[in-house]
C-alpha cells in the first residue's frame, strides 16, 4: 500500500521547499538580519538561478538549502522531509544534496580520482566501484586522462570540474552551486556553462545556482530568483521561456536581452 501511495504522491511533492525562512546572525557587536520571509518551491529537475548584489544573502540562502546553516525560523524541506529536527540535521536528506563551493576545495593530497570518489569512500563503497565511478565522471566532466593528476597540476577550470564531479559522485537529486565559476575567465566560464547544462541534462538533477552574472543566470535557468538586500528577500521570480538545451547564440536574441535588461534594471534599483 505504501508503495502505491508513494508513486502516486511523489510527483506532487516539490524537490525543495523553503517556507517562511528567516535568518539573523548574532555577533557581539550587532545583529544582522540576513534573510526574511523566504518562500520558495523548487520542482524536480528544475534549474534555478539565484542572483542579487553581493551581501544580499544569496550565499546564506544556498547554505540554508545545503543544511550548512540552520534558519532562525521557518522550514526547509527536501522531498517533503524536513532538513532539521530541532537542532539535529537529517543526514539522510543531506545525502541527497551535492554542493559545489565557490572555491573548489579539493584535497591536495588526493589525486583527481580520489577527490571525486571521496564522498563514496565516506559512504563505505569499495575501491573498485569507486574507481569505476570516478572514471565515468571524469568522462562526463571532460577530465579523462587526468585521473591520476594532483589538483595543483590542474587549471582553475579543471579544478572546478573536479569539484563538480565530486558533488555528482553519489548521484545527488539536487546540485547546489555557490558561484562555482566566479573565479574563472570569461571564455572558460562560457564553456563551463555549456557543460553544466549538458551535465544537468545527463544527470537529471535539480540545480540551484547562485551567481552574480545575469547572462549566466538567463542562459542556464528555468527560473531566476532575484534577491534584494538588507534584509535579503525575494524581490522577483522570472521564468525564462527558452527550451533547453540552449545554444550560446541565444545570448544575442532580443528576448534574451529583454529578460537580462529587466533583471539588470531591478538590480540597479536596489543599489
Amino acid at each position, binding site marked *: 500500500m505504501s508503495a502505491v501511495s508513494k508513486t502516486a504522491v511523489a510527483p506532487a511533492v516539490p524537490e525543495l521547499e523553503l517556507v517562511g525562512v528567516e535568518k539573523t546572525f548574532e555577533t557581539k557587536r550587532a545583529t544582522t538580519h540576513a534573510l526574511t520571509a523566504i518562500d520558495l518551491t523548487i520542482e524536480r529537475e528544475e534549474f534555478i538561478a539565484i542572483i542579487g548584489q553581493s551581501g544580499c544573502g544569496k550565499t546564506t540562502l544556498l547554505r540554508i538549502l545545503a543544511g*550548512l546553516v540552520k534558519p532562525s525560523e521557518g522550514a526547509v524541506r527536501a522531498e517533503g522531509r524536513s532538513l532539521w529536527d530541532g537542532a539535529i540535521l537529517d543526514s539522510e536528506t543531506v545525502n541527497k*544534496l551535492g554542493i559545489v*563551493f565557490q572555491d573548489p*576545495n579539493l584535497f591536495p593530497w588526493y589525486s583527481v580520482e580520489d577527490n571525486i570518489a*571521496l564522498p563514496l569512500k565516506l559512504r563505505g563503497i569499495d575501491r573498485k566501484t569507486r574507481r569505476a565511478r570516478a572514471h565515468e565522471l571524469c568522462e562526463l566532466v571532460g577530465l579523462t586522462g587526468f585521473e591520476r593528476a594532483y589538483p595543483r597540476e590542474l587549471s582553475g577550470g579543471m579544478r572546478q570540474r573536479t569539484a563538480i564531479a565530486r558533488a555528482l559522485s553519489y548521484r545527488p537529486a539536487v546540485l547546489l552551486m555557490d558561484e562555482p565559476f566566479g573565479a574563472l575567465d570569461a571564455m572558460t566560464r562560457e564553456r563551463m556553462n555549456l557543460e553544466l547544462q549538458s551535465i544537468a541534462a545527463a544527470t537529471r538533477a535539480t540545480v540551484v545556482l547562485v551567481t552574480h552574472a545575469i547572462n549566466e543566470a538567463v542562459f542556464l535557468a528555468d527560473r531566476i530568483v532575484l534577491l534584494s538586500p538588507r534584509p535579503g528577500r525575494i524581490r522577483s521570480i522570472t521564468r525564462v521561456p527558452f527550451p533547453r538545451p540552449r545554444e550560446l547564440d541565444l545570448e544575442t536574441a532580443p528576448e534574451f536581452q529583454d529578460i537580462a535588461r529587466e533583471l539588470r534594471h531591478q538590480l540597479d534599483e536596489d543599489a
Partner: protein
Amino acid sequence: MERERFMKLLPWVSTPILLALIIAIWKFGTSTFSVSPFVLPPPEDVGRNLLELMQRPEEWLVHAQITLVETVVGFGFALVTGVVVGAVLGRIFWLELAVRPLVVALQVIPKVALIPLFVIWFGFGLTSKVIIAAILAFFPIMLNVLLGVRSVEPGHREVMRSLNANRWQTFSSLDFHSTLPYVFAGMEVGIVLALIGAIVGEYLGGNEGLGYMVVVSLNALDAPRLFAVIILLAVLGWLLFFAVNGIKRLMIPWHESVIESGIS
C-alpha cells in the same frame, strides 16, 4: 625542456665545484699565511687523518653508534610527545591559553645551559644525553604540530561537513593529511637539534660518543683528528636529516616542499 633538465642537474655539478673551491681556499690560506697547524691544519693532514680513521673503524664506530642511538632515541621520544602535546594543545583552546606563558618561558630558556643539571640528575651515561636530545627536539615538533592542527582549511572542513563525515572520517581524510607537512617541518628541525643536544651532552660528561672524541682530540691538541671527527659528525647529521627528508618525500609527495623545481 632543456632548461628544466639543466636546472635538475645544476646542484649535482655546482656542489662538487663549490666544495673544491672551499678546500682550495683552505689550502691557500694555510700555505700562504703560515697559519699555525694547531689552529687550522692543512686539508691534506685532515684528509690523511680521516683516511686513517676510516681504516680503523674500531676507534670510532662504537662512538658513532652511541651518538646515533642517543640522537635517534631522544628524537623518537620528542616526536611522540611533541605530536601528542601539540595535537592536544592545538585542539583544546583553553588549555593552550592556560599553559602558553609557561611554554614560551620554557622555550626561550637556552636549554643547553641545563645540561649540567641533567648530568647531575641522570648520570654520565646514555640517559642524560637521550633526555637532552629529546628536550631540544621536542619544541619545534610540538609547536609545528600545534600550528598544523589549527591550519586545516575551513573550506575543506566544510566539504567534510556537507558530506556528512563523522569525526574519524574527518580525521583520517582531512586533519591527518593536512597536519602531516607540519609534522615533517618540525621533524627536520628536530632531528638536527637532537644531534646537537647529544653532542653537547657528550662534551660535558661521560666517556663515549663522537662528542667525547672531539673533547679527547682537543685535549691532545690533535687538530687534524679534531677536524676529522667534526667531519664524521657532519656526515652523521646529513644522514639523519636526509633520512627524515626521505620519509617525508615518501609520505607527502603532493606537498609543495617536496615538488622539485621546474614543475609549475
